[in-house]
């Protein structure tokens, strides 16, 4: 019987994104925000998504959360969560969400409790009283000062760090199996960032929740995520264990992006050119116009993902080639 199943249970991913494409019709033409994006996230796993602005990170999150903007189309692909296709029917409660900007993600005219309890009212079992108790205990867990009265305060009565703690508590409130975080610390100052990250990592690990973490900060990435996916222009360029990808990136884009990072490069260099507009994606490999080792074939066909020795996936057939010195300083 069991060999009839597509995947043995222990290998079944919690979240499986398969060949996902998201296109949006705009005045400037069809914007191909995401194309052919695939990855798996096992239960309790942590995956970081990195890439420059406009590479599709936020759209990927919105597809998973079921809040794609009006006019977005999904011409191909699936997003499976615990085996269910959540593109057709978004799941709430089982996926927690930590937004990017704690200052603007709470409605200023409602008390914190009134906002945070609404999601629980609809998606968590128990009475309002149970929900209040649960939230307050989570407020304690995220070390929110004066946790007992926090539900009756308005957002403007909290600091930025406190609001992000509120939102983390809210994301965990329905006991989700997956927490999705969109650069949750970029709006905060550096010392608060560290605390919040440590807290988030600790709480999700404790509860065996998987974490999908969007960031453009490599320091954050290595602190939080086991695996990393590097997105470029709506495609996955490289996907693998964080330590390996950071230490020895293989995709030319990943190599140049890491070389750009001030912590790692002796000299700050840039990648020539800019990310293409989503309405004007180049044919073939979307990085080829900026790639120092591009060959004529790169403009013709979309590169297949190649598996390398450590299990990483690299979307470049020439990943073993050395980059010319000039490109890396």
């Amino acid at each position, binding site marked *: 019987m069991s060999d009839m199943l597509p995947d043995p249970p222990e290998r079944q991913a919690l979240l499986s994104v398969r060949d996902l494409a998201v296109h949006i019709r705009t005045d400037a033409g069809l914007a191909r925000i995401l194309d052919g994006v695939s990855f798996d996230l096992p239960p309790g796993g942590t995956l970081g998504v990195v890439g420059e602005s406009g590479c599709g990170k936020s759209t990927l999150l919105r597809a998973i959360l079921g*809040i794609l903007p009006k006019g977005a189309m999904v011409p191909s692909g699936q997003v499976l969560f615990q085996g269910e296709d959540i593109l057709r029917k978004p799941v709430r409660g089982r996926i927690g969400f930590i937004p990017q900007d704690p200052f603007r993600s709470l409605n200023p005219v409602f008390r914190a409790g009134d906002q945070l309890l609404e999601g629980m009212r*609809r998606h968590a079992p128990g009475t309002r009283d149970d929900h209040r108790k649960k939230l307050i205990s989570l407020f304690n867990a995220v070390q929110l000062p004066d946790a007992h009265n926090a539900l009756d305060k308005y957002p403007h009565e909290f600091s930025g760090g406190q609001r992000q703690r509120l939102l983390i508590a809210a994301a965990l409130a329905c006991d989700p199996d997956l927490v999705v975080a969109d650069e949750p610390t970029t709006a905060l100052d550096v010392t608060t960032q560290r605390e919040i990250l440590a807290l988030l990592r600790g709480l999700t690990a404790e509860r065996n929740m998987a974490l999908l973490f969007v960031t453009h900060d490599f320091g954050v990435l290595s602190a939080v995520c086991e695996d990393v996916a590097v997105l470029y222009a709506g495609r996955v360029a490289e996907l693998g264990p964080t330590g390996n990808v950071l230490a020895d990136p293989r995709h030319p884009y990943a190599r140049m992006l890491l070389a750009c990072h001030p912590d790692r490069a002796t000299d700050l260099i840039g990648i020539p050119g800019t990310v293409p507009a989503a309405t004007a994606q180049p044919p073939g490999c979307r990085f080829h116009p900026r790639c120092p080792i591009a060959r004529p074939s790169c403009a013709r066909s979309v590169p297949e993902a190649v598996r390398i020795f450590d299990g990483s996936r690299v979307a470049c057939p020439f990943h073993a080639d050395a980059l010319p010195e000039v490109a890396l300083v």
Partner: protein
Amino acid sequence: MARFILRRVLLALPALLGLVLLTFVLTRVIPADPAAMLAGDAATPAQVAEIRTRYGLDQPMWRQAVTHVRQVLTGDLGSSIFTGRPVAEEIGFRLPATLELTFVARFLSVVLGVPLGLVAALDHNGPVDQIVRLLSVGGLAIAGFWLAIMLQLLFCMEWELLPLRGRIDVALGVPPGFSGLYLLDSLLAGRLDLFVDALRHLVLPAVTLCLPGLASIARFTRSGVLETLQKDFVLYARAAGYSPFRLATIYVLRNAVTVTVTQVGLLFGALISGAVAVEAIFDWPGLGTYAVQAILAADYKALLAVTLVVGVVYAVVNVLVDVAQALVDPRVAEQMK
């Protein structure tokens, strides 16, 4: 919140005192010699002098100002030159008529305007939005006096559904009660027949008067909702699993109406002055018709009283708007501290 309200009321007092003083200045600026006005065209200089002494107009200016303020504060607004009756008494009869009309008109424009603005915003650039836009442009563009006459022609003359003029059928009598608001008084007295009759008289003037306010409230609500829908917290609430209905009706609307609340207050003053034409056409015995009569008769005591009353209504509405805003948006009360 109690402290906030007290503060707003205290802040309104200097404005009211200023208003009282200003009306005093007006009595000295507009009619060159009030004594001559009071005495009339045929009076002899001796009669004018006698009147001047009787009304204290020969007193020093500051003493007259003090007397004026004291009289106004004790409710003594003098007597009408035209009818000879105390102005306070006449206004006491007419103010409730105007208040009833304007309250109902304002109520209609809010309960119709806010939902219209909401559905228009939710159907941004769709057919519903276009229809609401047409209605609101029309509501602002159509002149009240024209609409009033058209409504009279249709509902009173052609179809004979509603009464043409007045507040109530005089054959039925006036509802007994303290407030002078016929709808309220008749209900409190349990006189359903009077209530229905007063309502039938009220429909057309109220509909006429509510239209411009309805139009601008719909537009303000629409743009408020559209703006709020762009906010990050709406996206967050969607991700957290708010139902779309709750999101649109409660979550977004409360932010959107902060602008509308101010608008309602501002319009309230305009509503009272706008009532002049409507009251005249429907022969509504309110402040508007009273003011028109006072102007035509050069009854400056009556005009002063109307100015005062309208000013007081403005001040009261302003306080109410501030309080309403603080209730809708907690940050407003915070900033006032």
